[in-house]
């Protein structure tokens, strides 16, 4: 009960200190909000970009070419194995004749094909995997190569690899940005706490002489730093939300010009809570580091 009471007192004191210097508090919260909004907004843009790229490009597929001498029983065997494979979303069979007719339908190829002595095309399956990540597709391709009567397996995943590499790069860039600005946020709260300790030095000394424990002295500062971080996180969330609303319409217009449909999604509930919680945690960390450094000297 005493513990709860003292936490309530510490929170009240932290709020009073926030209120006591409103301009300083506001500027600190602004700095933190902007510092957090940049990586959060960057992450949001990357996620939206990936979603748009994936939705506008064809699903990556794997082509299976059977041996030229594969008979209908072997084709049926492959079809059964593909149907039973849980990593495959769907598969489509293209018979030799069907492929030949398709090529004959293409301008310029008909004459070439007509002079060939026999149908040069094998039976084929076009497989759509459930997981289109390059690593999963590679694994599936190895598995499919081992099927009887399969002569050649071709992965149609180059664009997925490129996108994956670009995505990794962008995510790394956002992570580096987040690390740098997160460190900046810790530095901001570290410095604010240092100033607060100097300003409250008399109170700290008197409190210790009257029997205050180290926790009692540290608690209001920790609440103060955590509150600053929390409010900075809320501000960052507001900035990201406002930016996504603001940019949503122009993005949609650009996408339409390219024949795409794009709607900018904003942070999910979990991501929003995560952002605010991370901001509060960074505020707490900066304060804790600063108290460790400065409180013993007060």
């Amino acid at each position, binding site marked *: 009960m005493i513990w709860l009471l003292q936490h309530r007192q510490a929170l009240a004191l932290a709020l009073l200190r926030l209120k006591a210097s409103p301009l300083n508090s506001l500027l600190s919260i602004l700095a933190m909000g902007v510092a957090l909004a940049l990586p959060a907004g960057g992450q949001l843009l990357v996620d939206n970009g990936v979603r748009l790229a994936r939705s506008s490009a064809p699903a990556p597929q794997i082509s299976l070419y059977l041996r030229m001498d594969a008979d209908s029983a072997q084709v049926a065997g492959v079809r059964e194995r593909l149907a039973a494979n849980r990593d495959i979303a769907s598969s489509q069979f293209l018979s030799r004749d069907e492929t030949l007719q398709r090529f004959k339908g293409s301008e310029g190829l008909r004459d070439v094909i007509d002079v060939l002595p026999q149908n040069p095309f094998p039976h084929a399956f076009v497989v759509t995997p459930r997981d289109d990540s390059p690593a999963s597709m590679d694994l599936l391709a190895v598995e499919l190569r081992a099927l009887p009567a399969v002569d050649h397996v071709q992965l149609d995943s180059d664009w997925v690899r490129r996108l994956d590499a670009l995505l990794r790069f962008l995510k790394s860039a956002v992570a580096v940005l987040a690390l740098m600005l997160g460190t900046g946020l810790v530095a901001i709260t570290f410095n604010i706490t240092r100033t607060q300790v100097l300003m409250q030095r008399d109170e700290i000394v008197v*409190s210790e002489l009257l*029997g205050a424990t180290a926790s009692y002295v540290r608690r209001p500062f920790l609440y103060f730093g955590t509150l600053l971080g929390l409010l900075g996180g809320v501000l960052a969330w507001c900035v990201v939300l406002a930016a996504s609303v603001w940019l949503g319409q122009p993005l949609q217009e650009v996408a339409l010009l390219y024949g795409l449909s794009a709607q900018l999604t904003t942070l999910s509930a979990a991501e929003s809570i995560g952002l605010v919680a991370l901001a509060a945690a960074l505020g707490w960390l900066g304060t804790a580091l600063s108290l460790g450094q400065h409180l013993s000297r007060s």
Partner: protein
Amino acid sequence: MGVMIRFDRVAKRYPPGIDALRDISFEIAEGELLVLAGHSGAGKSTVLKLIAAMERPSAGAVLVNGKNVGALKPKAVPFLRRNLGLVFQDQKLLFDRSAFDNVMLPLSIAGFPARDASQRVRAALDKVGLLGRANSLPIALSGGEQQRLAIARAVVNRPNILLVDEPTAHLDPDTAADVVRIFHEFHRVGVTTVITTCDRTSFPGARSVVLDHGRMVA
């Protein structure tokens, strides 16, 4: 009556080798009023600091209620101080807080519920005649009132021991007499009281220990 405070061959040396106390031994009984007398720099304040564990002895032992405070772990020190009432020579009031909030501070630290704490603060302010100035900032109080405010803060926790450093040093004779009267009142209700002063005649009837350059001379 048992022994509340005991100094056993205590010495305190500050760097670079300044002896503030040398081989001091005395006892203070429970409920006793002791006056520590001596000139400036005699070591009186050091005695109070050792009792409150603000300093640790260089040699010997300081026992408070049977506990060797020089050997206390840092985490235990705050709990010792919560049983002490401290009145500092410079009062150490918080000038950005009202008289009421200054007196409330020890109770907040001890975790008293707000309603009980508020009643105690009012009682303590009433005892020293400052209830009508509860909302005043210390800067608006006279020297004597500030001293009385410091006393209210020291006694609001109802401590077993009251340690008072030079309470009448900067007060006019009438105000000083008023402050002395307050300490006598606390002593009468059984609080062990240790008061340092340059002028032991301010506390007639009280046992005194006289220090001179860190040595006990009487």
